[in-house]
């Protein structure tokens, strides 16, 4: 394991060196790609100040609100439509069309209807996140084997209990994959909305810094966004491992 860590640090150093070299040689203008040293300096400045944490909080608040609602709606709907074949078949085309819809394109419409409010940001996040959760829950519910269904039926397990104790646990691995995707998406969408509107948050700070000509600060915010996304992915993977310890290991990727 130690060797792998060393390799990874080496790769990181190589990338940083390459970045510094490109910036120093002036291949790209410094407003498009500032050097790593100036970005690091800006970053330490930001972390000490309040505006940075305010922006991070604003982005996370919008992302989490939308995500929570998406989970609360997506999992039940997904499980129910996954269990009943007729429901799944009827809703398939609709979900196919809706999930391939680029949610951010709804922004001008939402700006008209809802205005530039934090609620609008959360709504856009919700719409973007509900489909990964719903589809994965549906997929998980479908993966419960017929033998299990028949056993449940012959024991006359009540419907609610069946959903809570049989179908939901069976679908958890698949739901976790959906959750991981939705969590990353939520931050992405929140930042996307902030870049395009005047709503406060990381996206807005990126835009403001770049417009003020301080591209090193813009990069510091972009890297912060990357770190948040990375942390979410890692946390979700950790949660997946802990929640699914009772299961024999399956193939990666959570089909």
């Amino acid at each position, binding site marked *: 394991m130690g060797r792998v860590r060393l390799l*990874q640090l080496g790769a990181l150093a190589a990338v940083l060196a390459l970045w510094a070299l490109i910036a120093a040689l002036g291949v790209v203008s410094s407003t498009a790609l500032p050097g790593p040293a100036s970005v690091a300096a800006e970053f330490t400045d930001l972390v000490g100040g309040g505006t940075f944490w305010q922006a991070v909080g604003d982005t996370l608040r919008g992302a989490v609100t939308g995500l929570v609602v998406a989970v609360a709606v997506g999992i039940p709907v997904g499980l129910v439509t996954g269990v009943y074949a007729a429901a799944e078949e*009827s809703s398939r085309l*609709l979900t196919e069309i809706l999930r391939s819809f680029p949610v951010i*394109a709804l922004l*001008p419409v939402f*700006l008209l209807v809802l205005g530039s409010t934090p609620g609008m940001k959360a709504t856009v996040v919700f719409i973007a996140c509900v489909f990964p959760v719903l589809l994965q829950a549906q997929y998980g519910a479908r993966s419960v084997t017929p033998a299990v269904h028949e056993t449940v039926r012959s024991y006359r397990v009540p419907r609610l209990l069946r959903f809570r104790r049989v179908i939901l646990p069976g679908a958890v691995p698949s739901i976790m994959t959906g959750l991981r995707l939705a969590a990353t998406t939520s931050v992405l969408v929140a930042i996307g909305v902030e870049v395009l509107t005047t709503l406060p948050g*990381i996206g807005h700070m990126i835009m403001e810094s770049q417009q003020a000509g301080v591209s090193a600060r813009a990069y510091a915010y972009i890297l912060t*966004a990357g770190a948040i996304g*990375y942390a979410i992915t890692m946390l979700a*993977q950790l949660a997946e491992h802990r929640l699914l310890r009772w299961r024999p290991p399956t193939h990666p990727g959570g089909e």
Partner: protein
Amino acid sequence: MNPTTWTFWQPLLRRLWLPALVFAVLLVATAGSTSFYFPPLTEVLGVLWTELLHGGLVGDLWFSLRNIVLGLALATVVGVGAGLVIGEIRTLRLATGPLLDFARATPTVGFVPVIILTLGIGSGPKVFLIFLGSVWPILLNTVSGVQAIGPAVHETARGYRIPWQLRLRRVTLPGALPQILAGIRVALSIAVVLMVVSEIYGSPVGLGNFILQSGSSFHVAETWAGTILIGVLGYLLSVLLLLVEHALLGWYHQRAPRARRAVRPPTPPAHKPATERATSNGVVV
């Protein structure tokens, strides 16, 4: 009714009744609507039709479509190329793992102001942004696709001393193709989003610019029409990709699901690549 036509129609009917019902409800609910924000659906569709035929919407559509195709093609070439190399060389794969995951997790929309404010509002920076966003899922999926090829296959290829170019072309690439295509499908949804965001942020043409302009000048029907057109474009592109996938992967889908599953590694590797499966490409940002 003829039984054979019934067996043809029945599954179709089962799938189409709900979308048709939703469409009908929307049609009826908005008919004669006097609400400023929700004009009648017939009016929206009428506007879409006339804008496409007589307005400049075809030019916008062409601009957006070209950027998506160029950016995605570039991302596919670079992503698959780099992914094959990284996937084949174990040391490189281990070393770059966290970096690639970080790059994948960084929201490309954040780069939109930086790139457009410094490189301009033309087509080039937009293609670059689309490339930047869509290259990571393709690259990561290619890496894990290469990894998923059984060691026996590699050893056989080595045992027969198949030259590396031939091995890459006839063994590694086809073996990783299912995963690569799943990655491209994820990349497509990201590409459409970046197309929209980059055009809303700063562009004289394009579908994103169209909905922004009509929205900010309170032409509500036009805004809805443009939004619907973007949705249709995204859906048609994903269907097109699915058709390509079926054409290229006929051999893969014809195999039994059990055999298909065996292609993947039996135990999770030490570093788990962030792979998106075909079932989970709902990442419509």
